[in-house]
Each structure stands twice: as C-alpha cells, then as structure tokens.
C-alpha cells in the first residue's frame, strides 16, 4: 500500500441526500468539506423520483468530477412517516423473555389499536430474562419458543425479541434468534432489543417491534437509493444512512435497524448547520414555514433526549436528538385584531396568502417585513392600518420571547453558546436575541440537513450495569462494546474513539450500583476507495 498522499481536492467527494416530507435535498462536499453543489427538489410519492432528480441535479453541476463521488449518505423521515401514517408496515411476532416477571403487561400495551392490529402477528411472554444483578429470572425454554412460532397464524414478516435486562445480558436474545432462524428460515428477519434501545422494557420492546415492522419500508428506501446510485453510474461509491444521533450506518446495518433513522432529519439539520457555521458547540434553530425546531450540538454531536419519545402514539426510548419544536414559522398566522400568534400556519401557501405577497392573511413573515426585520428583501412591503401594525409588532415580540425561552431551555444556562440560524424563516430570529450568544447565519443553511448527512461520522452506543467498586470495569466493558458497534456501523477502526460516557446511580439496594452508557464514534473507513490509496483529508 502506498503512503504517498494524493492531492486532497481530487477523487474524494461526498454526496448527501435528505428526503423530507416536502423536499428532497442533495449536496456535494469536497474533501475539505466545502459545498460544491446543492439542490432542492420536490419529494415524490415513490421516493425514487425525488432522489433521482436531486442526485441528477448535483451531478450535473459536478460535470466531469462526478466520477470522484466516493460516498453517498442519506437521511430520511420516511420511516417516521410510515409509522405515523400506518403505511407499508410488516406483521411482527413478538417474543418477550422474562416470565413470570412482566406478565402483568402484555407486549404492545398502550399502543393505538389500529397500529397494533396492523403490526401484531402474535405475542408471547416466555421464560428467560435476568435480574439487575445477573440472576436468571427463569431458564430459557427453547421448546416454548418453538411452540409459539409453530402456533402463529397468518403471514409473519419479522420477529422481535426482547429480554428483561438484555442490554446487560445479551446472549439469550441471540440464542432465541438462532431458534427462530432454524424454524422460520433465514428469510424472516429477527430484531433484537439489545441492538435497539436502553433499559426500560416496554419502551425498548416497542422500538424493537417498530424496527421489525419497518424492514419492508427500509428495503424500499434503500432499493430506491441504490437504484438511482446505479443509474447515475455511482456504483463504486459506498452508500450510508444517517441515524438519529447524527452518525452514519453502513447500508446493511441500516437495513437491519431502520428505526434508528427515525430522528435523522432533525439530527442532520443540527449537525449540518453547526458544521456550516464552524461552531463545535451551539444551539441550532431551523425556522421553517410552520415550526421552529431547536436543538443543541455538543462537540459536534446533537444532544440526545433523555425522555421517552412517542412515535405515532407509541412510547419508545431509542436514541433521539433533543428537539424542541415551537409554533413559530414564516407562515404562522397572526390575529390582526389582537396580535395573537397561530396556532396554525398557512404553510406552503405563504406565497399566495400572506399580506406581503398580495394575500389577505397576516403572518409572522408580514410582521417581520412590517418592522423591517425581514432583511434581504427590500422590495417587500406591508401596508396596513396602524392598529394592525401594532398587532403585527406585538406578535413578532411574542415570537421573539418564545424563541428566547426555548433557547434558554436548551442552553442549560450557558449564555455564550452561539445560535446558528438556518431555514427559510431565519429572519424571524433577531441578531440580539437575549439568552443567546453570537447569532450565526451560515451560507447554504437551507440545505443544512443534506450537508449534515454528507459529513456525519459512524458511531455506536452500549450500556453496562456495575457496582460502584466495579465502575471502571463497567465503563471499560461498555466502551469496548460501543467501539465494536461503531466499527460495525462503518467507522475506521484506527480512528474510532469514545465520545460520551453517561452514569446513572441505581438507588434502593444494599449494593450500590450504577448504569453507564458509552458512545463511540469515528470517521468512516475509506472502504469506497479500494482501488486508490488512502487520501489525506484537509
């Protein structure tokens, strides 16, 4: 292998795609992470069309350099939309290990009935599982697993397995996966809870079942992306999916863990915006037509939520960025009489309905134009009666207050964190927002999510429970598992490192125990450039 570095600008382009509900964006970054092509195309019903249009547009900009695209990374809200819309979900057989414990709460307890009916192929709570100290609750009974599988009626698209304390004692779930493969064949995928979520049985089980139900959807999206990649002659490029925490998954990992893409849209936006602004630690606000979505980036990673998250009415505890959404957007209605904000928005009809565009609906955009805050568009004007003008001013003031409250809520008291503003409604955020540090408005902020996808790292997280005395050992074990998971997700084994360690004390026991949670991440291994030597990154 040659150690001679090639010029960094050649042969090492990353193409990022973000498939949202409205738009499909694409960008191309060069080896120094500079945006050299970008586009915004409408998302199509079949997904493929929008991806095709977006990728074709940026490749056209690249011209002769299209052959230098080495990596394609995608972020999408497709899985989220499938759950929320109950579309295209598979039927899942659910095996919980731990009986007689947890028999008081059958699997899928608390799910909306229609979602449960469309997903559940059958469920059983069977012997197995562990106590917090590793004591088996009961012995795994392979025959009982077999009998449950034999007794299933109707089609089964996937199997979900969730054992009590399996994140700490994972072998048993893997054993059950073997039994399932032996009975149902390798064609029925098995989703294990240890790969999906943290301690919290029902939430982790829910996420595992959703993951199993999303296999078909995931295949559809990965196939769409691969089809376009092949069509466009990018067959040599490595293809990745972005996950909730702003790190990437190799395609085969993504195909097995589709639920981990559920928060990737906002995660990419946060990472991309922070990156474009140059800030390692920042608060990011993405101001759209309907909402402002705020998140925090810490050392380049989106901060994760510690609260259980609901998706489509189902409580889950998988990794999600800590996002605060508020009803402040460019299309947010303003009551011209009182100045009351929203609650609804005119959305994509802003350009016909708002006063500034000749319509008859007062919006926050009009308030910004009226007060001269809209910047950049000097020809806009809003001609209103003084009373309406006062209402608009009041509404904008309220929007600023709301943004300020949200920034304070996310900043945990650090008033010097820069505030990165992206999105079409960014002018709603004043440069002197109290509670925020410097306000940054990076170029290409409108495609921050695709940028985020294109420059993400590969990462993995693992958990351990240990005694206070055995804390160091628990951290070491969790770190090793996290590093292995990051490498499995595509990270370069030589450059992967531990980036986060969380410790939670477990009270009310004579033996003091703690739970540690470790995250590891690293740049992607350059698997896509197998016929060329490693390329130094600027």
């Amino acid at each position: 292998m040659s150690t001679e570095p090639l010029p960094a600008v050649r042969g090492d382009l990353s193409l990022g795609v973000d498939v949202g509900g409205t738009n499909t964006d694409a960008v191309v970054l060069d080896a120094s992470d500079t945006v050299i092509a970008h586009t915004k195309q409408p998302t199509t019903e079949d997904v493929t069309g929008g991806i095709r249009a977006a990728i074709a547009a940026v490749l056209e900009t690249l011209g002769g350099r299209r052959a230098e695209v080495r990596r394609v990374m995608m972020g999408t809200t497709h899985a989220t939309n499938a759950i929320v819309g109950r579309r295209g979900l598979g039927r899942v057989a659910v095996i919980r290990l731990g009986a007689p414990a947890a028999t008081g709460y059958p699997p899928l307890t608390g799910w909306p009935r229609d979602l449960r009916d469309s997903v559940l192929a059958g469920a059983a709570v069977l012997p197995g599982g562990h106590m917090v100290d590793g004591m088996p609750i009961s012995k795994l009974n392979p025959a009982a697993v077999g009998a449950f599988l034999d007794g299933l009626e109707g089609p089964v698209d996937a199997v979900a397995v969730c054992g009590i304390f399996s994140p700490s004692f994972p072998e048993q779930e893997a054993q059950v996966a073997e039994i399932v493969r032996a009975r149902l064949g390798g064609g029925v995928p098995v989703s294990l809870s240890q790969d999906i979520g943290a301690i919290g049985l029902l939430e982790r089980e829910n996420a595992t079942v959703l993951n199993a139900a999303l296999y078909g959807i995931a295949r559809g999206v990965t196939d769409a992306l691969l089809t376009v990649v092949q069509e466009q002659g990018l067959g040599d490029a490595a293809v990745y999916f972005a996950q909730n925490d702003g790190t990437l998954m190799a395609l085969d990992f993504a195909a097995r863990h589709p639920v981990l893409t559920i928060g990737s849209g906002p995660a990419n936006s946060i990472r991309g915006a922070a990156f474009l602004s140059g800030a390692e630690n920042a608060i990011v606000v993405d101001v759209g037509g309907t909402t402002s979505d705020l998140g925090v980036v810490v050392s380049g990673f989106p901060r994760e939520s510690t609260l259980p998250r609901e998706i489509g009415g189902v409580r889950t505890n998988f990794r999600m960025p800590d996002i605060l959404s508020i009803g402040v957007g460019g299309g947010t209605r303003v009551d011209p009489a009182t100045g009351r904000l929203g609650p609804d928005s005119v959305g994509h009809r802003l350009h016909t309905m708002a006063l500034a565009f000749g319509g008859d609906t007062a919006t926050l955009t009009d308030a910004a134009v009226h007060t001269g805050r809209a910047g950049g568009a000097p020809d806009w004007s809003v001609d209103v009666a003084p009373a309406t003008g006062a209402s608009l001013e009041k509404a904008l003031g309220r929007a600023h207050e709301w943004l300020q409250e949200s920034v304070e809520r996310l900043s945990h008291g650090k008033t010097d964190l820069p505030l990165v503003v992206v999105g079409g409604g960014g002018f709603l955020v004043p440069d002197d927002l109290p509670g925020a540090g410097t306000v940054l408005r990076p170029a290409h902020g409108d495609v921050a999510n695709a940028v985020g996808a294109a420059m993400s790292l590969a990462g993995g997280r693992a958990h351990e429970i240990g005694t206070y005395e055995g804390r160091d050992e628990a951290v070491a074990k969790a770190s090793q598992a996290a590093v292995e998971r990051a490498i499995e997700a595509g990270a370069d084994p030589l450059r992967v490192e531990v980036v986060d360690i969380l410790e939670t004390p477990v009270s009310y026991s004579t033996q003091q125990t703690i739970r540690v949670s470790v995250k590891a991440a690293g740049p992607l291994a350059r698997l896509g450039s197998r016929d060329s030597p490693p390329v130094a990154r600027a």
Partner: protein
Amino acid sequence: MTRHITSDDVPALAAGAAIFGTGGGGAVTTSQFGVAAALDLHGPVRLRRVGELTPDDAVIVMAGIGAPTVGIEMLPSAEQPETLLREMERASGRRITAVMATEIGGTNGVGPVGWAAQLGLDVLDADGMGRAFPEATMVAMNVAGVPRNLTVLSDVVGNVTVMRTIDATWLERHVRAFSVAGGSLCLGASMLDAADVPGAVIEGTVSRAIEVGHAMLGAQDPVAALSRTLDASVLVNGKIVDVSRRTEGGFVRGSVTIAGTGAERDRLLRVELQNENLVVLEDGEVLVSVPDLVTLVDSETGHAISTELLRFGQRVSVLAWACDPLWRTERGLEIAGPPAFGYDIPYVPFEPGRTAPGAAGREGATTTSGATA
C-alpha cells in the same frame, strides 16, 4: 352514592397520583397502561368510603417496593397480587374485601386499582400517606399505632415471605433485604381490620386524585385548576435556573433553584429534595416543609415533574398545600417531620393562600444557607 372507577378515569388518576407524588413515587405511565388494560378486561371497580366499611371487612394494603430504575425494566408478574392476597388470607384467617394503596403518590397510587380489578375486590377510598414518602415506616397506620406485625412480600418469580416483625424499623430492614434478593423489586402487603381503619388512614385520597386529574386535564389554565382543586398556593411561577444532585447513602439528595418570571422576576426560591420535594426556602426562610406537600408542575400543562426529570430552563409552577392533620400530630412529625429527613428546622404548618415570604418561622433554617436573591 356508590361510585366506580372505569378505564376512562385512569388518565386522571395517573395525573393526580403524580401530583400527590410530590416529585417522588416513580413514573406513573407504565402503571397507567396496566390499570387501563385491567379495567377493560375485568370491568370497573367499586370505590368504597371508609364510612361504608362493615365489621366483616378487611383491607389489604399494597405497594410495589424497590428501585425505580429497576422498576422500568423488570415489571411485576401478573401472579403477584393473587399470591399476596392468598397468603394474607391464610396468615390472617380473614377474608379480604378491599384493596388500599400504601401511598397515593406516584405509581403506587395507580397500581392498586388494577390489582383490585384483577382480584375482584373493592378499592378503599384512602391511602397510608396522602402523598409519597420514601420509607415503609412513614405511614398513617404507624402514626395511629395500629399494629402492623403481619407483612407478606412476593417477588417476580414467585417467592413469598410472610413476616411477623417486632416493629416498623425491623420491618423496613427486612423488606429491603427481601427486595434486594428479588432483584431490587417486590410487591408488599399488610392488612387492616375494618375496625382499625378510621383514624389510621388518609381518607378520600383516591377520589381526590381522580378529581384533581380530571380538573387539570380538562382545564384551559391547568395550574389554576390544580390550585383551586387542591386548595394549594402557587408559591411562584418561574424557571429553573439551577439543579444540583448528589448521591448520599443510596438516596439522591439535591436542590433546585427557581427564579420567578414576569411580575415575580425578583424572587428566587430553592426546593430541597431527596426522592421527594421536602423544603422550600426563600431569602433563607422556610416557606413550606415536609410533611406538607410541594409539587413542581409544568407551567403550561400542569403535569407534575418528578425530581429526576427536573432540568435547567423548565418553566415551572411550585404548588404547596397542607398535609392531612394526622401528620401534624406529635407522633406524625416524629415519623415524617423535617428532622426525619435530616433537616434541623422546626415545622411550621403551611396555610394555603399565603404566597409571600415572611410568615414562616424566621428562627429556622440552621442547616440550610439562604437563597442568594
């Protein structure tokens, strides 16, 4: 009129129980799902007032015991309530007719309704605390001096212990040992003879939790609805500006500082907490202390925020209201007054309607330095 609890009441019961949890008592959501499912399956349960008990009645007093962090992962067995009932009837020789919650605050205030549905028993409209407390000794039955020398414990795999302990201190010690052996989680029960119930329980707390929950969930202004229904004072509306926690002897101790917003901008309150919110201070003066009740709620939704979920920047309202008179007796304060939690301050009964500082005991606060307003 006899009333029943239906699955429609469960969200209100859960929200109300969280309010009475005073920051502790564990998350109510999992119980909420289980109880709603049990009521759907077995039908509504009858809620009986203390005055409706006859000499033939006997009450099983139940609670889940253990580490909340374990409780979210290792959930109870469906068999445990039946096991406890069977062993308690065998050991006591009595036929049990109703279930009472040991504590109305938090998850233990919700679960017993589902257990009653499953067991075909009534629910007694009362509990042992009127709130949440961290120890099994901190119950009204102990204040009243009703002997509780018979306890049954059951773990998730089916082990059962029938204990006859000499006093509450030994009871606490043995319960802990059994809980740890069973994976830091067990279900426990004691028994109350109908004749011993009056004066040894906090009455009306189940219907009150449901009422409070309904009022809050249906309100335009949830905080005002809570204040009205609970007869509680809103001590301050503000935002959290500091949260500090430390672990001492297996318990989480800490404090949270709330800065007033709007017209109350100049105020700074500190809430001292362990598993529950225990003492509220302003300018070095004690505004409220345990056993009176203090709950931090989300200023917008009114939902109670448990101590482990308090975060910088949250908009909160601090509610305080009076405890049951039983806790204000000499014996009640000995068991659950400020000194029982390690605070060397005199107890001054909290009276609703008082929001400004100054009326509380000025001579107190020796272990706690004043808020730095």
